[in-house]
């Protein structure tokens, strides 16, 4: 279904192209050698966009879970730690965090940090606060009876979480986690400001050379669009698969 929508959007773009005399598609025309080289240059950013987003989302899920678990503790200090972390991290704009991690952190710690890892750290940190809230809600939505049943067969806390609570919680929060992944793919474009060679950076660099922002940014829009529609379809497939797992 998402692919019908995608086809529709492509048609719309081409229609607009036909209506306007200002378009110069030659710049990314795959049938022309120069255009093909430009197109390949634009697409080459895909590698880092994907690598950056997926590395960051994995780390942010791990941090998010580690921050969510204290929120469910009976200990007040642990719960407070969770609140402070979430409130602080949520309050910093991603772009600001990227700049701070890349330019500020090395000066503070004396460690040198690559563009890639600065981007990963900033994206993962920023997203972890949201992941923590999602996990907290997911875990809290699991019926108390599940904990009691796990206790009654004397599972340890770790086993109870690993085998009983989290598998059910993750099924419930999968749509929200999918959203975060889409969000992460989009936010990775901000890492272009520190020179990460991902999709947006590539487009910016090509615009400077070719001076055809309309066509090049249109291609950029389509790149993100296709990428995200594919990822959403993947998440929905996974959701359906896990659902049917439960029904057998």
């Amino acid at each position, binding site marked *: 279904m998402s692919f019908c929508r995608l086809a529709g959007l492509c048609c719309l773009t081409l229609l607009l192209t036909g209506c306007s005399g200002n378009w110069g598609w030659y710049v990314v025309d795959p049938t022309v050698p120069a255009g093909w080289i430009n197109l390949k240059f634009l697409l080459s950013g895909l590698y880092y966009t994907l690598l950056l987003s997926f590395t960051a989302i994995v780390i942010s899920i791990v941090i998010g879970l580690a921050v969510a678990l204290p929120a469910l503790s009976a200990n007040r200090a642990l719960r407070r730690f969770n609140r402070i972390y979430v409130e602080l991290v949520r309050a910093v704009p991603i772009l600001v965090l990227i700049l701070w991690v890349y330019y500020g952190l090395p000066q503070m710690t004396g460690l040198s940090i690559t563009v890639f890892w600065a981007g990963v750290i900033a994206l993962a940190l920023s997203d972890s606060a949201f992941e923590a809230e999602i996990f907290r809600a997911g875990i809290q939505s699991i019926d108390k009876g599940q904990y009691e049943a796990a206790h*009654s067969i004397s599972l340890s806390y770790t086993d109870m979480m690993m085998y009983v609570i989290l598998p*059910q919680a993750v099924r419930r929060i999968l749509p929200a986690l999918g959203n975060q992944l889409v969000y992460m793919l989009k936010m990775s474009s901000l890492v272009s400001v520190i020179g990460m060679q991902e999709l947006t950076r590539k487009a910016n660099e090509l615009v400077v050379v070719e001076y055809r922002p309309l066509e090049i940014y249109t291609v950029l829009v389509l790149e993100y669009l296709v990428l995200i529609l594919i990822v959403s379809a993947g998440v929905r497939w996974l959701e359906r698969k896990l659902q049917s797992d439960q029904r057998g």
Partner: protein
Amino acid sequence: MVKTSFCAMLNLSAKAMIKVENVSKTFGDFHALKNVSLEVLTGEKVVVCGPSGSGKSTLIRCINGLERHDEGLIEVADNRLTHTSSSLRAVRSSVGMVFQQFNLFPHLTVKQNLTLGPVRTRKLSQPDADKLAMAYLERVRIPEQADKFPRQLSGGQQQRVAIARSLCMEPQIMLFDEPTSALDPEMINEVLDVMSELAGSGMTMICVTHEMGFAKRVADTMVFMDHGEIVEKAPPEQFFSNPGTERCRDFLSKILAH
């Protein structure tokens, strides 16, 4: 002479499996248990009844540490319940619990529900645990459902799976918290049959239930609770024919009316 030796024999085998002494429990202002004492011998079947809110469920939930008692002493199979994790583990490893709402793990198959505890806490190998699970599924008479998910089963079947899940931990004591209250009437008997059979095998049991037919058949001791107190404790013959207190008589007349 015969009588004394019989008593001596009784004393030898009749060891207290569960000891509850002067236990109190409050939820905020609500006094759920007031100074409750109860002793359950090895192999004894105790049926607890009483109006809702009388503390029956709280009592058995305290026995396996699902609720933390405020005062008093609870000892289960010689382990004192102190709510440290080692004490909880010791107590829970000898106590099985069956819940009103079954509380099966919905994301696991019937067999996986049964093997999770044995594999994770009793450190059985998966094949051994599978064998154990199938043996107990036979015992609750649903081996053919092993690979289904809980929601594909009827309520009665789910509750039998829950009983089998507890038994897979090979407990010395089974606690039943209104095991048939969430079931459709036509499924109550299949669960009670499994419980009766379990009682026949010599398991120590405490059942909170309103199934008085089952209680008459199975119970060694009837306990009636009201307002967080044990009001009456008697063998079933005496309990049903000649209850000693007004409150108990009143309760029985209500639930045995039809």
